């Protein structure tokens, strides 16, 4: 309900408490003032009424017309006084009630102020004083107070910051002390390690001197070995070069052989083709011979037909002769003709017999031709098989010779590579010889350096032992 800047600080709280108490006390003061004025007025009225009553009594009936009027006046005066008394009693009752309630309210407010301010002001101060004295583990208390926005909050915040700073400084001091202890421990360890290191270095130097001497000897030995190897490598180079030349010659010869084999194979293949052509010619001749034999047989059939015709003609001539004889003279001319026909038939039979005999010779000759041609074809077939076998062998031989050529060529290349490698090895041996020479010089220098290092380490050890002691 207040502005946000209102943080209930002590001054602000006192102002509010003062306003509350001031309001109650103001009411109380007003009641007192009113009460005093009322009492004064009542006192004046009572004084006036009393004075009037006393005057009435002192007059003792004087000034009144009769006793009744005097008594009435007296009663009125008494009633006035009683009224004043009742008013006073009523006002006093009101006053007492107001005073009681205002005092009770004041007491309540005062007690509340005391309790709250004890909680808000005195108790935190006491607790923080205990924290300052170090008698209380009150970091939580301080943190709780630091959340407040009044003076106690500011105070607690300052204390919290102060303690945080102190803890930080304490932590820093502890860390620094720990670091110092660690550094001391490291220095001690370093000293021990240094002494061990120095001893180890001395041992290494001693061994290094021994190794240096042995290395010098070994390098000299290596030099001599390298020299020997260099000379042998030279010999090896010459040998490999000669081998390389021989292998090249072998390769050339094998190539010539391969060329000859190739030519033979080609000739064999050509022979095989000639045999194939001859086989086809023989086949044709065989076919021709068979055709001729067949033709002869056909002629033989024709001859048989001619013989049949001749026989028929002969029979016909005979019949004609018979008929001519039967006819007599009339048939004489016809008998001559029949006789001529008979002669012709006889000559035809003779000619056909002759033809038959010759045909039998031709058939026999053609049968022999067929047999011989078959034998010739078989021989040509055999020749062709042999030529094919020779061609296969030549081709295989050619393939083998080409493989030999290839392998020999590879061998020649390998031999060349071996020769190059031997040359490289010879070069490397030469460089190894130079390196051995260098190692000999370096080992000599290393020996000197080891001696210097030994002297330096001995001086360093003497110095560090003197410092450590």
């Amino acid at each position, binding site marked *: *309900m207040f502005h946000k800047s209102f943080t209930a600080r002590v001054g602000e709280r006192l102002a509010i408490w003062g306003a509350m108490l001031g309001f109650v006390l103001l009411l109380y003061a007003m009641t007192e003032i*009113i009460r005093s004025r009322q009492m004064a007025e009542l006192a004046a009225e009572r004084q006036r009424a009393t004075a009037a009553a006393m005057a009435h009594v002192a007059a003792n009936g004087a000034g009144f017309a009769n006793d009744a009027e005097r008594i009435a006046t007296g009663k009125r005066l008494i009633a006035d006084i009683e009224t004043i008394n009742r008013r006073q009693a009523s006002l006093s009752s009101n006053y007492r009630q107001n005073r009681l309630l205002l005092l009770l309210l004041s007491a*309540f407010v005062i007690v509340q102020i005391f309790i709250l301010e004890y909680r808000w002001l005195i108790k935190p101060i006491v607790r923080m004083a205990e924290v300052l004295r170090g008698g209380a583990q009150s970091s939580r208390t301080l943190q*709780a107070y630091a959340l407040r926005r009044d003076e106690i909050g500011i105070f607690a915040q300052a204390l919290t910051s102060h303690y945080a700073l102190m803890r930080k400084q304490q932590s820093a001091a502890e860390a620094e002390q720990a670091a110092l202890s660690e550094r001391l421990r490291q220095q001690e360890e370093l000293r021990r390690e240094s002494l061990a290191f120095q001893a180890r270095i001395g041992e290494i130097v001693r061994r290094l001197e021994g190794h240096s001497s042995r290395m010098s000897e070994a390098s000299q030995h290596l030099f001599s070995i390298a020299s020997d190897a260099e000379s042998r490598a030279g010999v090896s180079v010459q040998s490999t070069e000669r081998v390389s030349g021989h292998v090249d010659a072998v390769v050339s010869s094998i190539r010539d052989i391969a060329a000859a084999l190739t030519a033979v194979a080609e000739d064999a293949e050509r022979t095989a083709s000639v045999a194939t052509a001859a086989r086809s010619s023989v086949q044709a001749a065989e076919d021709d011979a068979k055709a001729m034999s067949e033709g002869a047989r056909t002629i033989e059939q024709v001859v048989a037909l001619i013989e049949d015709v001749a026989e028929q003609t002969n029979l016909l001539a005979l019949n004609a002769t018979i008929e001519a004889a039967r006819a007599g003279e009339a048939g004489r001319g016809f008998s001559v003709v029949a006789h001529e026909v008979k002669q012709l038939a006889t000559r035809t039979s003779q000619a056909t017999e002759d033809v038959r005999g010759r045909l039998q010779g031709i058939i026999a000759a053609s049968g022999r031709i067929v047999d011989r041609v078959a034998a010739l074809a078989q021989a040509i077939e055999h020749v062709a098989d042999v030529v094919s076998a020779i061609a296969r062998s030549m081709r295989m031989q050619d393939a083998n010779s080409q493989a030999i050529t290839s392998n020999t060529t590879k061998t020649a290349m390998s031999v060349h590579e071996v020769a190059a490698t031997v040359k490289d090895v010879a070069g490397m041996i030469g460089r190894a010889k130079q390196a051995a020479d260098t190692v000999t010089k370096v080992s000599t220098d290393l020996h000197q350096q080891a001696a210097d290092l030994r002297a330096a380490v001995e001086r360093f050890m003497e110095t560090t032992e003197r410092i450590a002691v």
Partner: protein
Amino acid sequence: MTPAASAHEAMDAPPSAVRRLTVGAYRTPAKVFHWIAVGLVVFMVSSGVIAKQLGEGAAADFLFSLHKLSGVVTLAFILIWIGYRLICSLLGLRRRSISRAALHWTLYGAFVLVPLLGWAGISDFGARELFGSFSLPPIWPQGAGYDALLLQWHAYFAFGLLALVALHIGVALQDYMADENSVGSED
């Protein structure tokens, strides 16, 4: 639990607990209601005490008339305020701790009870007149004979209400004293 106990419980709680229990913020209607209520309380207590002390006379009558009028206004005002708070509570616009809610609802009850006691007392006594010819309607039978008792309890409860107001101020100061996140979360 009495209001004083609930207030002390709230004050004993650590700031974090107060902060956890008090969320929300004042709204302008609440501020207006609050300061009007403050003015009404100051005026009614002042007029009541002084009129009671005057007891008689024109000034007392005038003050009593003002006191009665302001009492009726306060009653109407507090009923409106209670309605507003109930609506806020139903809508979830306001949340607060149980102890503070108890203190406030006790205050609202006292704000209702005290004017009603006074009204009943003057109805019994027969002094319902205000200014001019205007009178308050009776809420108690006139001449029942309880007027003195009713008015006496009216005064006692009025001062009890003032004590509750004092407690309320203490709780509010406690909240303002806490960190700023909880400031203004209670009225």
